[in-house]
């Protein structure tokens, strides 16, 4: 571990290497590439939420002049059902194909059923209109109650409930795809020891990641079988794997180049367009571009689960928690795979508890298959536990921060989901919020403040990095992780730190699947942690080469050379130091170009704990909630680039505020999404928010050379409950169902007054 004070460049606020291109409009995002001869693709989408496909007639579309390819679900392979390990995720390959293009049944309104490629957008649109799909409508299953009802309509007739161990005993077809319990101690004992017991149910609606850039890609299938894909994705190697699967090609035939990415938040870990564009390109022999509209994004790409959580807590009068029991029901959308597992595991991770039973259910409904959304599952679970703890604090007359301090985990605690925590900064973050004005200042009329904490595991996984030194002593760092929030700046800083040259002399580059070794996705808050680790190791590898070259130059054993401040130093002092640029300029005489490389499978990512306080003012006559102050504190380990770390906190808070107040999918009785646009899918706008104060608590993570923890996901975990708790304090009404939109809050205030 480096002494934190010893950093020269890490921790500074350098200008991001890709910044100029992005502020001048030159950076190329998913929809920005055009190739000669390129066709426009268009996807035909289901107009039913649940129906059998009787017949698809493509003949008219095929005969329209200017149409070069038409495909349907029958053009994709009929794969055996199996789980494909995708880094840390698992994906059922059959579900993946069925979601890419429906076969047999459509399972949500907007489900892809066919696709065309034509010489112009107009002709592609006309061709799409000419594809006639005959449906046999089925009853729609739009919520948990409908899915769980006896005699419920089944989305998948062959689906039985699985557990970690395999199918449940005596399996019967059901919409419940997965069941997972988390047990510790004995809850009966725990509740018997309680002096106060509270039990309530909390619900959340389907919400979308809401990235501003719609999904987009260009695929170019070459004669001879190779395919180039250019796309906006969080995981170019994932796109390669899944496209290869869908086309039954070896991965080595596919090159994926990630464009700049206009937001993802987990939603661009899912793959929708690329196999379709690639197949259209193979059929037409021309490059094909596919770009989703905003409406398609909202109708057909993964949002996160609507949820229902029943939670019961037991506590002593002094606030000591004795037991927690919870039942979490998560909608998966049309195919299994909701984030209920991480929800179960994260829900109580911040607390010392001896007696716990948390049960999670993964349940399919006729909505788009959910995709990862920033700390998947954790915000919904935290909404339940952090709300009920606020209620408990009120019941017991204990300050909500003190209640949490009393029960919070610290170094050495056993997390309820298994491991023992190393150094963590949860209590430091709680203390920091306690003295911040957003929490500490007096509140005015109709105002209230609310506190909640949040936890996310963070992940490590596989990363590759290359560090190449140029003849003038500057460096180029290559990784395989799309830069979704300023990660190039962090990579440049870490390489600069090791090499001892200013960050401005380091160019950070995102490679394609052929220019850099395998990298897992940009997700799980892993990039700065794991890919950063690879960059540090690659830079150290380059430094080792530099020391060798200095040793050669001086004709001394390499053991006599050390590296500091960008210079090779002869330890005995017989030779004047050689700077990096002197060594690279002379490289031709010492063995040629100098570079370093590293491949890691980073383990033991540092967990992230955050504590937030919202301050709101409620208009009791309209139910309108205005956020008037907000502070987010988080243990970030070590902030490589503090501005982008603060930005992660602020962005997560803003998304959480939107989730709490106004964002929701609104469906009609037939399962048609009524608000598939930014007009009525209401994300926060600039005038909705105050400045969002941040407090970066830096408790270095012992398993990273610089102490880095992932930071991107934790910030969205606390806001739901922090806001609900603040609204309860301001209005006197406890809202346990999200969103707390003005009509709902008004109704609750009125009902309470009546």
């Amino acid at each position, binding site marked *: 571990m480096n002494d934190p004070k010893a950093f020269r460049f890490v921790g500074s606020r350098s200008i991001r290497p890709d910044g100029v291109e992005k502020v001048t409009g030159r950076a190329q995002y998913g929809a920005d590439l055009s190739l000669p001869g390129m066709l426009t693709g268009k996807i035909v989408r289901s107009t039913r939420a649940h129906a059998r496909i009787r017949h698809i007639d493509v003949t008219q579309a095929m005969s329209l002049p200017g149409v070069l390819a038409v495909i349907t679900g029958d053009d994709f392979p009929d794969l055996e059902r199996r789980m494909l390990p995708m880094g840390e995720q698992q994906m059922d390959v059959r579900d993946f194909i069925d979601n890419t293009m429906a076969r047999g049944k459509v399972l949500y309104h907007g489900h892809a059923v066919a696709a065309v490629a034509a010489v112009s957008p107009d002709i592609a649109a006309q061709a799409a209109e000419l594809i006639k799909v005959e449906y046999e409508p089925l009853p729609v299953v739009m919520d948990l109650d409908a899915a769980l009802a006896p005699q419920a309509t089944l989305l998948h007739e062959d689906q039985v409930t699985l557990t970690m161990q395999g199918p449940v005993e005596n399996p019967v077809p059901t919409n419940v795809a997965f069941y997972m319990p988390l047990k510790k101690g004995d809850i009966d004992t725990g509740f018997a020891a309680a002096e106060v017991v509270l039990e309530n149910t909390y619900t959340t609606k389907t919400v979308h990641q809401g990235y501003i850039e719609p999904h987009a890609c260009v695929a170019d299938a070459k004669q001879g079988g190779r395919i180039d894909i250019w796309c906006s994705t969080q995981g170019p190697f994932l796109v390669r794997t899944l496209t290869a699967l869908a086309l039954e090609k070896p991965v080595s035939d596919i090159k994926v180049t990630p464009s700049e990415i206009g937001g993802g938040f987990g939603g661009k870990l899912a793959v929708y367009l690329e196999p379709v564009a690639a197949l259209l390109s193979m059929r037409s022999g021309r490059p094909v571009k596919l770009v989703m509209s905003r409406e398609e994004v909202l109708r057909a790409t993964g949002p996160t689960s609507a949820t229902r959580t029943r939670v019961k807590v037991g506590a002593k009068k002094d606030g000591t928690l004795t037991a927690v029991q919870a039942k979490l029901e998560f909608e998966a959308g049309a195919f299994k795979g909701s984030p209920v597992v991480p929800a179960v595991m994260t829900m109580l991770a911040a607390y010392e508890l001896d007696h716990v039973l948390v049960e999670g259910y993964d349940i399919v409904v006729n909505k788009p298959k959910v995709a990862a959304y920033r700390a998947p599952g954790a915000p919904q679970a935290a909404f339940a536990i952090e709300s009920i703890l606020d209620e408990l604090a009120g019941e017991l007359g204990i300050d909500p921060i003190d209640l949490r301090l009393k029960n919070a985990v610290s170094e050495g605690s056993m997390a309820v989901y298994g491991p023992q925590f190393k150094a963590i900064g949860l209590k430091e973050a709680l203390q920091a919020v306690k003295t911040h004005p957003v929490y500490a200042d007096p509140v005015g009329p109709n105002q209230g403040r609310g506190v909640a904490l949040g936890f996310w595991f963070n992940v490590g996984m596989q990363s590759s990095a290359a560090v190449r030194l140029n003849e003038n002593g500057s460096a180029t760092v290559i990784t395989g992780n799309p830069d979704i929030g300023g990660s190039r700046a962090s990579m440049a800083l870490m390489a600069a730190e090791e090499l001892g040259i200013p960050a401005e002399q380091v160019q950070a580059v995102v490679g394609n699947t052929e220019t850099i070794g395998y990298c897992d996705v940009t997700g799980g808050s892993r990039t700065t942690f794991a890919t950063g680790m690879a960059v540090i190791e690659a830079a150290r590898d380059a430094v080792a080469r530099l020391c060798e070259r200095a040793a050669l130059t001086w004709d001394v054993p390499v053991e006599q050379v050390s590296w500091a401040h960008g210079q090779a130093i002869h330890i005995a002092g017989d030779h004047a130091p050689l700077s990096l640029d002197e060594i690279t300029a002379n490289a031709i005489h010492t063995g040629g170009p100098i570079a370093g490389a590293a491949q890691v499978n980073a383990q033991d990512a540092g967990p992230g704990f955050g504590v937030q306080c919202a301050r709101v003012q409620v208009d009791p006559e309209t139910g*309108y909630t205005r956020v008037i102050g907000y502070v987010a504190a988080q243990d970030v380990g070590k902030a490589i680039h503090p501005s982008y770390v603060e930005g992660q906190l602020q962005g997560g808070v803003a998304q959480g505020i939107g989730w709490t*107040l106004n964002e929701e999918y609104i469906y009609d009785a037939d399962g048609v999404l009524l608000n598939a646009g930014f007009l*009525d899918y209401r994300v926060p706008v600039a005038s909705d928010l105050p400045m969002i104060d941040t407090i970066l608590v830096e408790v270095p993570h012992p398993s990273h050379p610089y102490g880095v923890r992932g930071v991107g996901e934790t910030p969205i975990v606390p806001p739901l409950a922090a806001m609900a708790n603040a609204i309860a304090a301001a209005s006197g009404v406890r809202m346990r169902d999200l969103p707390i939109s003005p009509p709902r809050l008004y*109704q609750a205030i009125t009902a309470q007054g009546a």
Partner: protein
Amino acid sequence: MSEVQYSAPANLADAVALLAGGGSPAVLAGGTDLLVQLRGGRPEPSAFIDIKRIPELTAIRMAGDVVSIGAAVPAAQITEHPELGAVFPGVVEALGLIGSTQIQGRATPGGNLCNASPAADSVPAMVASGAICRVAGPAGERRIPVEQFVTGPGKTVLRAGEFLVCLELPRPAAGTADAYLRFIPRTEMDIAVAGAAVSLTLDAGGVCTAARVAIGAVAPTVLLVPDAADALIGSRLEDNALNEAGAAASAIARPIDDKRGTVAYRKAVVGVLTRRAAKIAYQRAQGGAA
């Protein structure tokens, strides 16, 4: 390939001729509703008649007893106008609430009215201030009170070939001011869940001598609320007068449940907005800041 024509006539006569010339032409003013509807599947028109190059439609005239606002003047130009806001602060603030800054750069009072949405922000304010619609068409010109212009969602009194030239607002008597408030779930970028406009005239003693109250987004068309006006007239807008006006607005409202609000909520909120808008108008009429 589309066969859609585009014309930008330079005078009223040409515009009338083009609109009356057959097909299914669409009047293009700011385009902020029309183009969204086209992207959303509305059939393409046979032609776009862009009215933004006709002088009568793009001017604000303050001379004389009537203030005239061209149907195709962008909202931003109206909110920037040096004098209009002093005379009709409520009309100007209503136009200033339509959409984002970007939408303000394009959206027009004519479009806001002719789109005939029940939730159009500028219409209640126009109604409260007694605006008259000047309409041109093949049979010549006619004038229609704004509250009679819209007949239902998406429907107006315009006949084939007719279009809106301008909105004419009678200069108000001394001691008159107006105000408009709407409720939306966010601070910007939403369609009104409910809206209320109040125009009132005070005598020297601060007693309300005349009032018009109009509410939006709570019925198929904007509604005039005479009972609310009556509640205000004769009062100094004491609480009971305000409450009565609010209750009258709530009572007359006949909204729908939809993704933006419920019947009960809209009825309640429109009353709150009526009270609050009346209070603001009152302060303005007294010469106070608001």
